[in-house]
């Protein structure tokens, strides 16, 4: 019953979030601010994680395909497809659920317990829309860029690992990343990214917006935001994969 009530509250909140904005110029400024806070500030972590994961995927593929019957270009191909199909969309989304999700929930939770949200409501501002909509729009716009960066950096990381360790020649790796390229995989990755961006921002905002009490509750809301966002991302990962790749 509690879960149903939470889901109901989530959709009621969304209906407030997507109400007509009071003043578009103010919202525009907020969106730019959120792109900086949620998107641009995440580029660093995405680059670091993607580079190392690309390198590890390449090395693991190389050590697991040490068979003369298997073509050498398989290592590059494995790295490219792993990054595109799963890592850059789903794994980065899970990492962002931790970084961005906890940030959103703690920001909104603190605003709630320090009565800043009440102050907005009393002024006649639709606080849900003013605070949450710019975050959703910023993430929907910028997360696909983060995914693209992750794919490029991941494959580059794999290539650097190949050069550094010599598990396969650089030429074979480059042939592999060009071999049997399916452009639809990009679409698949981007569609997933957009869904996950919405899940991260909306679920985290929900937990932060309805936080009550003090700092302990804000901490709990932040933890819940990460856990629930991650679970919903994993569920939708299965559903979207079946719908998009079947």
């Amino acid at each position: 019953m509690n879960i149903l009530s939470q889901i109901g509250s989530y959709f009621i909140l969304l209906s407030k979030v997507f109400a007509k904005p009071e003043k578009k110029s103010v919202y525009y400024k907020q969106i730019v601010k959120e792109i900086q806070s949620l998107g641009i500030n995440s580029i660093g972590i995405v680059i670091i994680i993607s580079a190392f994961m690309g390198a590890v995927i390449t090395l693991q593929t190389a050590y697991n395909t040490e068979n003369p019957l298997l073509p050498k270009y398989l290592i590059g191909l494995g790295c490219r497809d792993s990054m595109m199909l799963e890592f850059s969309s789903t794994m980065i989304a899970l990492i962002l659920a931790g970084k961005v999700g906890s940030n959103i929930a703690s920001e909104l939770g603190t605003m709630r317990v320090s009565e800043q949200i009440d102050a907005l409501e009393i002024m006649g501002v639709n606080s849900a829309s003013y605070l949450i909509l710019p975050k959703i729009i910023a993430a929907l716009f910028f997360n696909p860029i983060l995914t693209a960066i992750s794919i490029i950096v991941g494959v580059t990381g794999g290539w650097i690992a190949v050069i550094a360790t010599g598990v396969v020649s650089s030429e074979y790796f480059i042939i592999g990343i060009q071999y049997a390229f399916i452009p639809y995989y990009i679409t698949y990755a981007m569609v997933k990214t957009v869904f996950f961006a919405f899940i991260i921002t909306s679920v985290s905002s929900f937990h932060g917006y309805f936080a009550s009490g003090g700092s302990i509750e804000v901490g709990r809301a932040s933890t819940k935001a990460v856990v629930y966002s991650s679970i919903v991302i994993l569920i939708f990962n299965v559903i979207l994969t079946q719908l998009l790749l079947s």
Partner: protein
Amino acid sequence: MIEAINISKSFGKLKVLDDVSVKFDPGKTNLVIGQSGSGKTVLLKSLIGLIDPDQGKILYDDIVFSDLAFKEKKKIRQKVGMMFQGGALFDSATVIENVMYPLDMFTTDSYDEKLDRAHFCLERVNIENAGHLFPAEISGGMQKRVALARAIALNPKYLFCDEPNSGLDPKTAILIDALIQEITREFNITTVVNTHDMNSVMEIGEKVVFIFKGKKCWEGTRNEILDSDNHDLNDFVFANSLAKHIKNKT
């Protein structure tokens, strides 16, 4: 004028407000006093629509606020200024941005006009030089003044202050009280102040409403309060030993 008629509110089995009816006069500083947990914050939040009462009506100048649709409530709320207990200033914005916020949202003024108005409000509360600072960089007393400046930015018709003196030293508290009263008179605002500070009552309480265990227990002026024979009110007013001592002497 703001009027509450037969307001009741319960949280679970706990009845926090029980059939409270009260009128707040325009152009006056109306004080709601009572012990912590007596229901005065719930009454204030019911008056401004942050809490929906289980029963009763809230009227703003004879318009039934509690029956209005969201859009119509918004119009009235834009005439309301609120000073929260903790200030409720936006952490990520500077003092001047905090004061300009309602102007940004609800006026079509140019940037310079909004800036001028924000500076005027900050001057009015005597902190014209703190505009560039963030809320975390200023003292509690200054935060309250900024909250008051933001509350009056849109020339409100109604001003609500929730425990404006909490956490302040007596001298700063008196300054805040004096500011609230001056602004109330200067702009002819209907002001409702929630407090349990007897200094405030004696300084600015033009009309005083005493809430006890969720019920309106007494109503009068600050001059009448000392002569009241209401037992619960006397217990509250003369709670500390200094007040008891003075009462016994007189």
